[in-house]
């Protein structure tokens, strides 16, 4: 009767299963060393895989918004440059008007300066960035202001012409304009002419822009207005002042009347210039919020990356140790198998 607990097949079976297990572990460990991450994230983390997936989505979202913020910033830079131009134009126009008040050829100087200013305003308002008209509000595909001096004349020019004709009974170029009195013109400027630049009339004739500004998501939970608008009051006032001097027959007006027109234009322009600065500071604030948001998101993004790392990554030192331990184990196993194979009573009989 046998009493020892030993069988030949158990011996080979044991070494075989141990070897297979060790080799499987070695493959995983090698993969971990190469990638720096767990060989099977789902198997290691279990239910916390949901956390990793969510974190990765948060990370992607922050990156997308950050990238979009780059675009928004550039668009606002463009807007700022245009507004700067507008402010400079207003300044140039103001000094030209002041000079024209006392000059003998005042009418011509003033008219010329006003036409230039109006052209410049048109082109600045039509600034586009990446195929988007930046002063158009959400009507990004519509050019906000048409060229006043183009042929055929645009709606804005026609509206001014009609208003003038309705008030005085003749067109601006008519020599009869010399007969217009200061008070009559003042009435016109304050009444029908000013009405042309009020918001409802402006929208149809001068501007194709939508009142609604572009709103941008600058961080996951923050949406702000990021555009200036051709419909803003300072823009309308500037256009009013420029058009007043450029196209109300200044060349024919009596010097007294001309002076009152110029004074009116100076007053409007000065007020509008302050208004432009207000818009600039509004956009400036938006720019600052965007850069702050981007900064914050980059910090958040770093934190998320770090957190994903703590969940997914392995300790390389620990893995190398594991690999060397496994290698030793497998080598010993090989040596042992070979020795055991020789170790049979049959060989000694």
């Amino acid at each position, binding site marked *: 009767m046998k009493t020892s607990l030993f069988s030949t097949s158990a011996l080979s079976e044991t070494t075989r299963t141990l070897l297979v297990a060790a080799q499987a572990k070695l493959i995983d460990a090698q993969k971990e060393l190469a990638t720096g991450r767990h060989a099977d994230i*789902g198997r290691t983390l279990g239910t916390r*895989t*949901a956390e990793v*997936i969510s974190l990765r*989505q948060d990370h*992607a979202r922050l990156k997308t918004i950050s990238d979009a913020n780059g675009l928004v910033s550039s668009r606002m830079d463009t807007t700022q440059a245009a507004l700067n131009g507008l402010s400079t134009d207003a300044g140039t126009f103001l000094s030209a008007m002041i000079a024209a008040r006392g000059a003998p050829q005042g009418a011509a100087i003033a008219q010329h300066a006003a036409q230039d200013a109006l052209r410049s305003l048109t082109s600045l308002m039509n600034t586009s960035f990446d195929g988007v008209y930046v002063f158009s509000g959400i009507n990004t595909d519509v050019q906000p202001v048409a060229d006043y001096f183009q042929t055929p004349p645009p709606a804005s020019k026609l509206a001014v012409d009609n208003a003038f004709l309705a008030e005085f009974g003749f067109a601006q170029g008519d020599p009869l304009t010399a007969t217009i009195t200061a008070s009559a013109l003042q009435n016109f400027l304050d009444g029908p002419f000013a009405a042309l630049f009020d918001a409802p009339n402006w929208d149809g004739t001068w501007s194709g822009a939508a009142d609604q500004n572009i709103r941008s998501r600058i961080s996951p939970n923050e949406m702000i207005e990021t555009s200036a608008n051709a419909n803003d009051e300072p823009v309308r006032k500037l256009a009013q002042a420029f058009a007043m001097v450029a196209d109300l027959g200044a060349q024919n007006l009596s010097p007294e009347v001309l002076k009152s027109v110029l004074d009116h234009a100076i007053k409007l322009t000065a007020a509008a210039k302050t208004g432009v600065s207000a818009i600039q500071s509004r956009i400036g604030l938006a720019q600052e919020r965007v850069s702050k948001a981007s900064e914050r998101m980059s910090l958040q993004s770093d934190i998320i990356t770090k957190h994903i790392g703590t969940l997914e990554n392995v300790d390389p030192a620990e893995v190398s140790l594991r690999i060397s331990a496994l290698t030793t184990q497998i080598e010993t196993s090989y040596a042992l198998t070979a020795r055991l194979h020789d170790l049979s009573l*049959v060989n000694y009989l």
Partner: protein
Amino acid sequence: MLSIGLDIARSALTASGEQSAVVARNIANSGSPLASRKIANLTTAPGGGVVVASVTRASNDALTKSLLTATSSAAGQRAVAGALEQLEATVNDPELNASAAANAGTLRDALLVLSTSPDNISAAASAIDAAKRLATSLNEASNAIQHVRQTADAGLNTSVNTVNSLLAKFETVNREIVKGTLDGTDVTDQLDARDSIVRSLAEELGIRTITRAGNDMAIFTDSGLTLFDVSARRVTMVPSPVLTPGATGNSVSVDGVPVTGSGAPMASQSGRISGLAQVRDTYAVTYSRQTDEIARGLIEAFSEQDQSASPSLPDIAGLFTYSGGPAVPPSGITVPGLANSISVNVSVDPSSGGNPRLLRDGSIGSPGTPAYTYNQTGAAGYSGRVEKLIDSLTAARPFDTANGLGSPAGLIPAAASSSGWLENVRQKAASDAEYRTTLMDRTHEALSRSTGVSLDDDMTSLLEIERAYQTSSKLLTMIDNMFTSLLNAT
């Protein structure tokens, strides 16, 4: 007296011959892990000789029984772990962004880009593309789940057939053993064969065995149903040719009593059949419901409302639609098979001639209907609808509470928690399978050590037998010499 000595020596020679035959059998079987060691039992014959009274085998009842239990558990857990491994392809490494949650995240990011430049046609097209990838990933997940269920159903059928054929073999072998035991012949090889059949049976179905008088064996399932008692019982299951989402597979019955399925009073606890049934009826079903629920949430999140001053029209499916569209499925109730039929509306899909700008303007579900148009003025830079879509993609919404998704929850977190659920059950099943397999290996090793063949041991026995044979031969020669001298003396 001399002739008695001669008889005894002759019986010793015969016994040695039989003993060496048994040793030869052992050595021949030394490579087979399931073979047991055979022992030739010697007794003194009447008259003083020696005979091999019987051949028995080394056995260990306790270890044999624990090996059966360990085998069943390991096989069951391996079946579960294997199936969950297949399902895991729908999640994969989080780095690959292959899960539904990751695809929903990609769609949200594409919408974010679109909201910054609503008029950009390529941004709209890439958002549609992301939506299509998401729909496809849900379709694929649904297909994978159905495939796993179908495979499990087919596997159950195979297992049932295996069990029946094993039981038939068992019946034959068992009868031989009972008869042989009665006749007193050597039945050790048949006993080995019967053990191996029982072990194969244990892989398919959790069983317990009882050995009764005359080496007769009866088999019961681990839940107590008779599988074999004198004759084999029928194990039956009707396979389902097509298992649609939400459809329940047929249960496996032993002798007409169901051992799988919800509410089976005598449900089997281990073995491949139990594991496959769990996959088919529980894990895959839960995952399928979760996936369907995510699809439903998507359709709901992207549905379009009547924008008229006094809304009168019902909500309709927008960017995402399904076979039952354009009606939006009721909130918070799982619709089986939704993940399979969810698709991106063709009216917005540029590759089907659709207009991607509808994503900005609305009225995807019913192009040209002013009631569902969000961008009333037709502004190119209108981002209101896209912003609303982003919000509703992130907003918490009700989910069917039966699915373990958490409710209310945002779509992406819900989809992520579905992945988390899957990885969790997979982790448990895999480590359980590993543990059970190790346990089985250990038990097997212990059994093999206590009942298996040891070459060295048998070689030593052979040496003893050889020595005994030599001595007996010597004895014969000596008796022969004595006879000779006796004959010569007379």
